[in-house]
């Protein structure tokens, strides 16, 4: 038995040894062949070119066919939208070589590639009285002459701008995977005389501006409600109260002391109040009932602002100068956010939970500027510098644009790096808020 076992063991050892030799031989051979592959063949070299720069997408938007002036008005809306997004270079229509009438809603690839276009927007309006039918197409030359997006609209002439904003949003959705925020609205306080402000609402591009407050008092610090309407603060000789456009300027939240800066989220109204002697952050039901104090600190707490996940950003002077803090919607988990800058205020969240960024007004020298901070990395970015006083930032719902009030005379929109700054509303403006 023992002899048999030892014979088997010897056989096994021989097998293992042979296999190990074979493996080692094969490994060495493979390594040698790999080395041979890395060596360039005579007359043939392989190089890796990586990390390309990004350039604006070159898009051609000729006037929509038909509809008289409506054709140019419609294409102007899309041109302006895409330009403000800071992702596109809208090509000058004077450079177009294509025969637009002959092409109709199709394209000739050679005619458009020769002017450097990567994408082409085509459209046609058919008008019948005050009713219009609009056919829109998006082509991408790299994908051929078949449209990658087609959409039809039908409605009143006055709806044309809305149709164009919608198609611009669709263009962004097709090209980037995330729809745009064109067609959204801004609300802001605008100085209309000495010591007097009113609340205004406009399209994000500054069009269709109208006054939302009554014009009978001093209205300020507006924000959009969750179900429509605009909330704001009315300051009267007898005190201040919070109201909204649905209540026709009747007090919704009032009481002793100052009650200012409403912000609506989590189904509640967040505001700051000095009803208990010191300025603190409170929340209340939408009807103004059930006010709850959220902060308890000897410092001044103001400017609540809603963020993703029910988070609230606010300004507090509890550590000296005003700095940005965040907390949960119930006032728990207070965390300091900003440590740079001596006077930081008016925070505004980016509403994308995957992009945890807060924009705020900052001062570390003479004037105020717009700065953002990434809550994950702690990275600060200054959007304005040496361009007058810039304050009260607001993110667009897709976080691709930042609007802010500037002493350069109105509301400016830029990208989140502060580039491509364009004035969209003129006037002496404060407290800009972007609809969701």
């Amino acid at each position, binding site marked *: 038995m023992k002899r048999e076992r030892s014979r088997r063991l010897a056989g096994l050892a021989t097998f293992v040894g042979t296999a190990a030799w074979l493996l080692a031989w094969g490994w060495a051979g493979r390594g040698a062949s790999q080395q041979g592959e890395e060596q360039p063949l005579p007359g*043939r*070299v392989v*190089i890796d070119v*990586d990390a390309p720069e990004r350039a604006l997408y070159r898009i051609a938007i000729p006037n929509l066919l038909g509809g008289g002036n409506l054709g140019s008005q419609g294409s102007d809306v899309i041109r302006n939208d895409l330009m403000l997004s800071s992702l596109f270079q809208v090509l000058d229509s004077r450079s177009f070589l294509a025969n637009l009438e002959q092409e109709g809603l199709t394209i000739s690839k050679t005619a458009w590639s020769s002017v450097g276009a990567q994408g082409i927007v085509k459209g046609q309006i058919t008008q019948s009285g005050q009713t219009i039918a609009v056919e829109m197409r998006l082509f991408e030359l790299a994908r051929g002459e078949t449209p990658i997006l087609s959409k039809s609209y039908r409605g009143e002439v006055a709806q044309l701008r809305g149709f164009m904003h919608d198609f611009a949003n669709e263009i962004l959705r097709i090209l*980037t995977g995330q729809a745009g925020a064109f067609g959204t609205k801004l609300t802001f306080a605008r100085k209309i005389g000495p010591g007097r402000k009113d609340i205004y609402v406009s399209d994000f591009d500054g069009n269709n501006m109208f006054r939302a407050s009554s014009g009978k008092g001093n209205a300020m610090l507006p924000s959009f409600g969750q179900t429509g309407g605009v909330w704001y603060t009315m300051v009267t000789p007898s005190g201040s109260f919070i109201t909204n456009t649905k209540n026709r300027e009747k007090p919704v939240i009032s009481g002793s002391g100052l009650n200012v800066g409403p912000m609506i989220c989590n189904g509640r109204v967040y505001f700051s109040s000095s009803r208990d002697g010191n300025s603190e952050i409170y929340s209340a039901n939408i009807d103004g009932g059930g006010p709850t104090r959220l902060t308890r600190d000897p410092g001044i707490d103001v400017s609540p602002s809603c963020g993703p996940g029910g988070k609230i950003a606010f300004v507090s002077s509890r550590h000296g100068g005003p700095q940005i803090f965040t907390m949960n919607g119930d006032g728990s988990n207070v965390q300091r956010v900003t*440590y740079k800058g001596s006077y930081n205020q008016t925070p505004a969240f980016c509403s994308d939970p995957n992009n945890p960024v807060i924009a705020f007004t900052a001062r570390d020298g003479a004037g105020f500027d717009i700065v953002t901070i990434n809550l994950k990395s702690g990275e600060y970015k200054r959007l304005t510098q*040496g361009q007058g006083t810039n304050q009260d930032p607001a993110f667009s719902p897709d976080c691709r644009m930042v609007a802010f009030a500037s002493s350069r005379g109105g509301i400016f929109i830029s990208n989140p790096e502060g580039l491509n700054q364009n004035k969209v509303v003129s006037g002496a403006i404060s407290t800009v808020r972007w609809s969701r």
Partner: protein
Amino acid sequence: MVQIRAEDLRPPTLLGRRVLTGKMAVGGLLFALGAHLLVPATIALMLAIIAATGVGATPTKVIPEDKIVEARFVKLGQKLDPKKLPNRKVPVKTTAPQPGVAVSKEMDPPKPKDPKPPPPQHAEENPLLHLGDRAQQFAELQQKQEQEGDPKGIEEGTETQAKAGDLYRGQLVSFFKRGWTIPSTLGDTSRLTTRASVEITADRHVGEHTIVKPSGEPLFDQSVEDRFNELRSLGTTLPEPPPEVAEQFSGPWTLDVNFIGKKL
């Protein structure tokens, strides 16, 4: 009377067998045991005496713990005030001539059509007019810092020393990379690679190219096509190879280029 036998006069040989007696065996065993036990017993006795009396003991030295000093490679730059906000990043406009722009010594530079009249005497230049120029200069200064490397190296390089062939490959990478742009509408392109093959003519011009393996994203592939077309239409020549590898890159040859995307 002592009797001497004949074998007593012969020297002992290995062939002669000696008879081992019992006395001899016991004596040898005792000697071996004594030799093996005596030496360690003596040493043990000495150690016991030293331990008991403390004579000859050397004082133990207290060895201080080694302090670990963390070494880091310090980045080139300046100390920032932790309380100060960063400056706005100003995009740097390139001041280098466009690729393909011929600069000839023979050609006279074009003269301006309407030369500006000379400024009046004692005129002061308005510094506000040149604020943008200065901002541009500062922005360029901020971005370009001196760093170790090879004067013939490329900005994207990671090594400080290289062979002649490596340097030329780096120059080829720069040649194709500069001016290659992808549209900003593309998101994360780090997983995209377009493999292209391009003919290089004997006079180092970019010839015909083919996309050997597309990336699957037409816009990305188009950006590669655009880059080759641009180089061809401008008639730009590849950089001259160093003499050490000139033979390898002489005459028409084929270059394979992998165009790889970038993370957002």
